[in-house]
C-alpha cells in the first residue's frame, strides 16, 4: 500500500468503521444541491418582500453577501454576484430619480422646491416636478432598497448554485426542456465561431462590404453551418439513445398536463397572496401549497413514462435540509412579526422616526446566515488532486494514485 495523499484518505483507511454521516457531510467539500441554495435564496427574498424597514433590509443584504463570499466556488457563474449588486444600486438610484421627477410627493420636511407641471384630474398619483420632501424621498429609497435586496437574493442563488446542475435536477418529465437549454448554451459559442470564420472568409474574397448588405452574405453560410451542425447533433443524439425511454400514452400525457397547469395556476395565486400583505389569508400559503402539490403530482405522473437515470445526482442530505431551513426561517420570522407587530416591518415616515429593530425578525435573518456554516465548503475545479479523493467517496486502486 502506498503512502496516502491527504489526511482524509489516511483517516478513513485507518479506521475500519464507516464514518458517520455527520463526519462525511461536514468535512468534505462538495457542491450543495442547487435546489437547496434556491430554496434558501427564495426564503430570504420572500422575507425581504415583506418589509421596507431599512435596518432589516441592510441586515439581509449583509447576510446574503457573507454567505455568497464564504460559499461560492471558483466557477465563472460564481463571479456574477457583483453584477447583481450593481444592478440593485442602479434600481435604487432609478427609484429615487423617478420619485423626484414623476413620483407623488408627501411629507413635512421640505428638501427641494422644483417647478410643478399641472396635470389633469385623472392623473392623480403622478406629479411631474413639485416640492420634494424628506419623507417621500426616504420612502422611495426604502422601496428601492427592498427591490435591490430581492435582486441580490436571486444573484446569490445564481452565484452559489451551478445553473446547469439545477437543470439536471429537473424532474424526468421536464428533461427535454433541460436538454434543449443545455444544447442552446453550447450552440451560442459555436455560432459566434461560425460568424467569425465566415467573416474572415468573406474578406479572403476581397469582399469588404459592411452594414446591412454584409448581414445577408454572412448570415447565409452561418445559418447553413448551424443547420448542418444541428442535423449532426440530432443524428448523434438519436444514435446514443435519446428519446428511447419514452413510452408516451396519450392518457398519461393529458393527466400530467392538466395537473401541472392547475397546479401552476394555484401556485401563481398563492405566491401573489403571500407577497401581497392585503390579500385574504386563504390565497396565501394554502393556495401555494395546494398548487405545489398538484404541480408535483403532475410532474410525477409525467415522469412515469420516462425511463432515464441521472449520472452523479446531487445528494439531498442534512446540509441541504439545514440550508433550506435557514432561508425559510427568515420568511417564517417575517410572517410571525407581520401578524404580531406589523409596524416593526415598516419604516415610520409620518411622523419620521428611527425604525424599530424587532428581535424575532433580526433572529430570523441571522438564522439565514447560518447557511454559511451548515453548508459544506465548495470544491474548487482548478485543483484536480483533492477532487477525486473527496468526490468519489470510494478509494481508487493504489497503483492509480499519484505518488
Amino acid at each position, binding site marked *: 500500500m502506498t503512502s496516502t495523499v491527504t489526511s482524509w484518505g489516511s483517516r478513513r483507511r485507518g479506521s475500519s468503521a464507516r464514518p458517520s454521516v455527520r463526519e462525511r457531510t461536514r468535512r468534505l467539500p462538495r457542491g450543495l444541491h442547487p435546489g437547496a441554495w434556491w430554496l434558501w435564496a427564495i426564503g430570504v427574498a420572500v422575507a425581504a418582500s415583506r418589509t421596507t424597514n431599512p435596518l432589516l433590509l441592510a441586515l439581509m443584504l449583509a447576510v446574503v453577501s457573507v454567505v455568497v463570499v464564504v460559499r461560492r466556488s471558483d466557477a465563472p457563474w460564481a463571479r456574477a454576484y457583483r453584477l447583481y449588486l450593481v444592478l440593485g444600486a442602479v434600481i435604487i438610484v432609478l427609484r429615487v430619480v423617478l420619485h423626484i421627477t414623476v413620483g407623488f410627493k408627501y411629507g413635512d420636511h421640505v428638501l427641494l422646491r422644483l417647478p410643478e407641471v399641472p396635470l389633469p384630474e385623472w392623473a392623480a398619483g403622478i406629479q411631474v416636478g413639485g416640492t420634494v420632501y424628506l419623507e417621500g424621498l426616504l420612502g422611495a429609497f426604502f422601496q428601492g432598497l427592498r427591490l435591490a435586496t430581492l435582486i441580490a437574493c436571486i444573484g446569490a442563488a445564481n452565484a452559489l448554485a451551478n445553473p446547469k446542475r439545477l437543470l439536471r435536477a429537473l424532474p424526468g418529465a421536464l428533461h427535454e426542456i433541460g436538454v434543449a437549454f*443545455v444544447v442552446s448554451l453550447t450552440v451560442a459559442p459555436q455560432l459566434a465561431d461560425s460568424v467569425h*470564420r465566415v467573416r*474572415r472568409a468573406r474578406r479572403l*474574397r476581397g469582399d469588404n462590404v459592411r452594414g446591412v448588405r454584409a448581414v445577408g452574405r454572412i448570415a447565409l453560410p452561418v445559418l447553413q453551418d448551424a443547420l448542418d451542425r444541428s442535423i449532426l447533433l440530432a443524428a448523434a443524439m438519436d*444514435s*446514443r439513445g435519446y428519446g428511447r425511454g419514452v413510452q408516451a400514452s396519450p392518457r398519461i400525457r393529458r393527466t400530467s398536463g392538466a395537473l401541472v397547469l392547475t397546479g401552476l395556476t394555484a401556485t401563481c395565486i398563492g405566491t401573489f397572496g403571500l407577497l401581497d400583505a392585503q390579500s385574504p389569508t386563504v390565497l396565501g400559503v394554502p393556495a401555494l401549497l395546494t398548487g405545489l402539490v398538484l404541480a408535483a403530482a403532475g410532474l410525477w405522473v409525467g415522469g412515469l413514462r420516462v425511463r432515464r437515470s*441521472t*449520472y*452523479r445526482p446531487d445528494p439531498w442530505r442534512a446540509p441541504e435540509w439545514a440550508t433550506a431551513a435557514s432561508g425559510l426561517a427568515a420568511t417564517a420570522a417575517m410572517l410571525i412579526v407581520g401578524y404580531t407587530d406589523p409596524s416593526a416591518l415598516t419604516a415610520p415616515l409620518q411622523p419620521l422616526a428611527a425604525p424599530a429593530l424587532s428581535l424575532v425578525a433580526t433572529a430570523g435573518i441571522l438564522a439565514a446566515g447560518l447557511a454559511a456554516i451548515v453548508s459544506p465548503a465548495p470544491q474548487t475545479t482548478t485543483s484536480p488532486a483533492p477532487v477525486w479523493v473527496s468526490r468519489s467517496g470510494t478509494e481508487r486502486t493504489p497503483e492509480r494514485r499519484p505518488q
Partner: protein
Amino acid sequence: MSPAIVFQQVSITYPDAPRPALTAVDLAVDEGELCLVVGRTGSGKSTLLGAVNGLVPHFTGGTLAGSVRVLGRDTREHRPRDLADVVGVVGQNPLAGFVTDTVEEELAYGMEQLALAPDVMRKRVEETLDLLGLADLRHRPLRDLSGGQQQRVAIGSVLTTHPRVLVLDEPTSALDPTAAEEVLATITRLVHDLGVTVLLAEHRIERVLQYADHLVHLSPDGRVEAGPPAELMATSSVAPPVVELGRLAGWTPLPLSVRDARRRAAPLRDRLRSSTPGPGGRPPVSDAGAAALRSRGIVVRYGDVVAVRDVDLTLRAGEVTALMGRNGSGKSSLLWALQGSGRRDRGHVAVVAGGATPDAVDKGGLDPSTLDPARGRRLVGLVPQEPGDLLYLDSVTGECERADHESGDIAGTCARLLERIAPGIDPGQHPRDLSEGQRLSLVLAVQLSADPAVLLLDEPTRGLDYGAKRRLRDVVHELADRGRAVLLSTHDVEFVADTADRVVVMADGEVVADGPTADVIVSSPAFAPQVAKILAPQPWLTVRDVRAALAGPTAISETLP
C-alpha cells in the same frame, strides 16, 4: 462465430437521386473483427456505415431494400435509439456530436439515456477515463480539448454503454499523425482486448490497413467487394503507397504494413542502389530563387496563449512549401497572419512579387494587411480549412461570375480555371451538393482568379481520396511552374512527400525544422512516408520516384523477384 453485422441484398436509394447509393450489398462482419471500408469519395461509405445502426434510412430518409441485421436485430423494426445499447457510432466531427459540455458528463450521457443505475454509470465512467487516458481531462470543457482528445472522448462516450459494435466514420481525418496513431491504438486495443466489432471508414488507408482483418471495397458504381485485405488491395481503386509499391514490385501476397514490405524489399533496395531519387520531375528551386514573400518576427497571440512565436519565413517563387506540425501548433494562425486578414500582433510581411509595383519592391515589398482585402488577395490568396465558408451563392456559375467580378477579370476566367482544375462539374449545381474535392476545386478556382503571387492552402487534403489528391498535386505543381509560391499546411505525410519541395515543421508556435522535403521528413518517425520507411536508408519518398528510377536509363526489367 456468428456474424455481428449482416447485410442481405441491401440497396439504398435517396430521394431524388438518379441511382442507388448502394446496390445489392451482401456483407457479413464477424464478431471481434476490425473491418475497414474503403472507396472513392462519393462511393457510399457513409451510407453503408449509417445503415448499420439504422440512421439510414430512419434519420436521413430514402428507401432501403433488403435487410440489415445487427446482432440479430433488424434495423427495419429498430430505430437508431433502440440500437444504442449495441451499436456505438462516432462521426467525422466529434465536436458536432457532443450533447453536454464537459468530458465526464459526455461519457455518462449515453448511459443516462439507457437508464443504467447510478453506481454502474459511476464505475463505467471511471473505467472509460482510464481506458482512453482521459482521467486528467475529466472536468475540462469539451471545446478546449485538442482534436485527438475530442476524438477519444467521442469514442469513450459511446464505449460507456458497452456496445458490441463500433462504427467509426473517418476517425482520424482531422488529426495529426501522432494523434491518429493514438486513436488507432485505442481502437485496435478495443478489438483485441474487448472483442468489440469495429466497422471503420477511412480515406488515408495507409494509417489503418495493417490493422484490418476484413476489407470492404466500394466501387464507384455501387458494387461492394468484401474479403481479406491483401487480396482485395491487388485490384482496389484506392491504394496506399505500400500497396502501390508492392504492386509495382510484383509482390504477392501484397504487403499491407511497412514491416511486411520492408522484409520483402531487400532485392528492390539492391536494384535501386545504383540510381538516385529524381526530384519528382520538378527542377529544384535554388536557394537564391526570388523571394515572393518575406516575413519577420511574426507573433500571434490569443489572450495568454501565444499561437505563433516570433516566426521568420520566406517563401520563394516557384517553390511548394509544406507546413507541418501537430494539431494546435500554430499552422493555421501563421497562414492567416501571412495572408493579412487574420490576427497578427507583431512582425512584418512583405510580398515582393506579382501585384507589387517596382517602387514598392524597392521599399521592401507590400504588406497585404495594410491593403484593402480586394488588393490583398491579389498578392496572397488563402484557401481556408473549411472552403465552404467562402461560398454563399446558389450555383457554381454564380460563384464563378461573382469571383470574376471581385477579381476584375474578364468574364469566364474563373469558370475556365475550374474546368482545368476539376473538369466536368455541372455549372448549375448548388455548391453544397459538390463533393469535398469538387468544393475545394471551386474555392481554389475562385481564389486563383485573382492570380495571387502567393497561395496558401490550409489542410487541403481533408476528405480527398487518392485520385483527388493527385489532381491537387498537379494543380499545385503547375502553379509553382508558373512562378507562384505555394504554402500548404497539412497532416498528410504522403501528400507532402509527393508534392512539396520544402517542409517547415512547427511546434508550439515556433519553427523547429526547415529544409528540403527529403531532408526533413525521411528521418522523422512521425512524418516519414511509407516508401521512405520501406526503402530506408535510401532516401526514396514516393512510388512515383521509384517507378521513374526503375523505368529510367538503367532500364531495369519489370520482372522483379
